[in-house]
């Protein structure tokens, strides 16, 4: 893009002026609209529930059914 705003003879290069003006306008508008990007950690600890943990209340709840299954299939246990 030709950066000169005037040609050698002190005449304004309108097309160049227009183009650069438009570019500046777009850049400033983008800055105003987007603002800053937050790169800080959140206040609360991030809680991720993984269902690979053994929950003790589950163990207690199914213990009876498991005992029965073992009894019924004693040959493999």
């Amino acid at each position: 893009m030709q950066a000169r705003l005037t040609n050698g003879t002190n005449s304004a290069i309108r097309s160049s002026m227009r183009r650069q003006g438009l570019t500046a306008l777009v850049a400033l508008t983008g800055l105003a609209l987007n603002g800053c990007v937050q790169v800080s950690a959140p206040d609360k600890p991030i809680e991720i529930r993984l269902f690979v943990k053994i929950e003790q209340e589950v163990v207690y709840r199914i213990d009876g059914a498991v005992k029965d299954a073992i009894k019924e299939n004693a040959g493999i246990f």
Partner: protein
Amino acid sequence: MNGKWIEIMVAAVALGATATSAVAQEKRDPAYQSARTSGLIGEQTDGYLGFVVPPSASVKALVDDLNIKRKAKFFEIAAQQNVQPKDAAFTAACNIIRATAVGEYYQTPAGEWTKRTAGPPQLDSRCPQ
């Protein structure tokens, strides 16, 4: 006389607590029962059978077969109870290890092979009391 009775009762309860019921043992394949008794295989903390010593081909085949069947059972329980198969397997392990006979091998919560004694086995703290 009372003291003697209490001793006998305590001994009887202790015996019952350690031994697998005779009925259950009978239902096992003789080769499987033999492998358990001779310390070749033992009960893991995850509900499956494991090798205490490097297995022969036949023992490996035996254990693989039993573990496949156990896995199917755990998945079945899990589906019925609406829980993860891992939960069913873990709960089973608690019961299975508790039912091991004196002299058989099982894994401690730390994962070490250990021989079952007359006292209660070392169990994961999440096992039902």
